[in-house]
């Protein structure tokens, strides 16, 4: 897992939500992205609200010999987002890659969601993409282009299982629409904008909020039938961030064990009985 490569050699990246959410090898998505990026030669600004968690990720990276810096900031705050881009450029000289990984969720359908909670979810998940991009894109253009990868979700495309979270669905669907338009309107500036749509990934954040039974159902609902990890998401982001994907923009890449290709009845036999 600690193989060094050069797929992001010479690149400077911002990863939001980069702080540790898990423990030991059970890392969160932002943590996995940051570790993988530095292993492949990128210099990474680790953005998180929680300094302690960001320091844990930094310590892991330093132990492996990678190069990263912690930036404590709030992606819902415009000044913080400006300072974040400035910090990346000041520390590492330029900015090439932006990963918008921050996200929150919580139950609530449109009929019962509190307006204030709705606003918070939209701010954190969707508005943050605008705010970080607002300051990152001009810096990327100065260096000849860049790659933005936004973390959407299968719930941005289809209704998920369990209790509804309509604010989450709206925010993740909004990310797709925004990303597609950004991809087209900054295309000539060589800014690539893509989305990942993670499926039922077994991440520390999900594991904390789900019963064992739900975790098992999430695994079984996917055609491949085994658990996905934050590393699976991180490898897809690594590909899109690298020059290997220099002609890929405006795509939504599911990382979901085939879930989006299946109808409910197709997976019913695998869900009704334990396997």
């Amino acid at each position, binding site marked *: 897992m600690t193989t060094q490569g050069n797929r992001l050699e010479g690149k400077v990246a911002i990863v939001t939500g980069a702080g540790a959410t898990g423990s030991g090898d059970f890392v969160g998505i932002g943590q996995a992205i940051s570790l993988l990026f530095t292993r492949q030669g990128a210099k990474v600004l680790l953005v998180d609200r929680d300094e302690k968690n960001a320091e844990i990720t930094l310590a892991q990276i330093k132990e492996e010999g990678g190069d990263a810096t912690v930036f404590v900031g709030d992606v819902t705050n415009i000044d913080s987002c400006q300072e974040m881009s400035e910090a990346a450029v000041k520390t590492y000289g330029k900015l090439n890659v932006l990963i918008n990984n921050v996200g929150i969720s919580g139950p609530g359908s449109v009929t019962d969601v509190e307006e204030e909670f709705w606003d918070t979810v939209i701010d954190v998940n969707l508005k943050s993409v605008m705010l970080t991009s607002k300051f990152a894109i001009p810096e990327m253009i100065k260096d000849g282009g860049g790659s933005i990868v936004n973390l959407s979700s299968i719930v941005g495309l289809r209704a998920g299982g369990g209790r509804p979270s309509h604010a989450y669905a709206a925010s993740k669907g909004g990310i797709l629409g925004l990303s597609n338009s950004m991809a087209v309107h900054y295309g000539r500036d060589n800014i*690539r904008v893509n989305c990942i749509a993670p499926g039922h990934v077994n991440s520390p954040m999900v594991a904390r909020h789900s019963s064992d039974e739900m975790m098992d159902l999430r695994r079984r609902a996917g055609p*491949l039938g085994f658990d996905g990890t934050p590393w*699976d998401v991180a*490898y897809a982001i690594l590909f899109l961030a690298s020059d290997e994907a*220099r*002609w890929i923009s405006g795509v939504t890449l599911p990382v979901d*064990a*085939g879930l989006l*290709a299946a109808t409910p009845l197709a997976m019913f036999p695998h869900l009704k009985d334990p396997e």
Partner: protein
Amino acid sequence: MSTLGTRLEGKVAIVTGASGIRSDDLWGIGEAIAILFAREGASVFLVGRNRDKAEASLARIQEEGGEASFFPADVSDNDACQRMVAAAVKTYGKLDIVVNSVANAPDHPTSVVDVDEALWDSIIEVSLKTVMLTSKHAIPEMINAGGGSIINISSIQGVQAGFRASHPYSAAKGGMMALSKSMAVHYGRDNIRTNCLVVGQVHTPHVAVVIPDEARQMRRRAGPLGTEGDAWDVAWAAVFLASDEARWISGVDLPIDAGLLVTTPLAMYPYLKDPE
């Protein structure tokens, strides 16, 4: 360039359509995939109808220290597909990856009204039925090896209408994406991953022979990035999907199109109306 990578180390891959036409330094999609696969450590079985046309890729792979063999086959023939899979397994001991990269398209505008029935059948056979035929024999061998990755080379024309009508091609490519999703779901528990690469207006040898320079520039300008894609852009995406890095990705259609599929005609009109 001569140091081999490890992203496909220990894997055995069949790449069909790996003996297309070449011109100058322009490589075809099948050739580029075969070369990158070998460079990443896979043993590659290049399949095509004509060995002569595969010599350049084979030589390149050998030069770089990679492992590859050629197998002559027409993948629209069921027996040939069976022999192809058996030969790959005999040569390299197993089968992990199949890339379906053969296709044919009409060389003139072809709508449902004016298409000749025989031409329609030939395009569906070569561009769609071949996926079924190669998979029919490859999947059982992949299951023997504990799973596998099938990559089908589709086209943006399977999603949206292109500049001129090519209705049998659109039908074949759309069919390919639907077939891939069903295969992804129904062989998922066997750890067979099936994905499509949705190729945009890349410049390849096939395109170069039929397209005048002005059209080449229009194809480039129609994409938001405004740069020209080539076979290597497709091949890198194939490396990713073939590798274990994508072990949890199946049933997806991944566009390689400079952003074309998220545009509307009016969004790109300013870039198309005047030369840039």
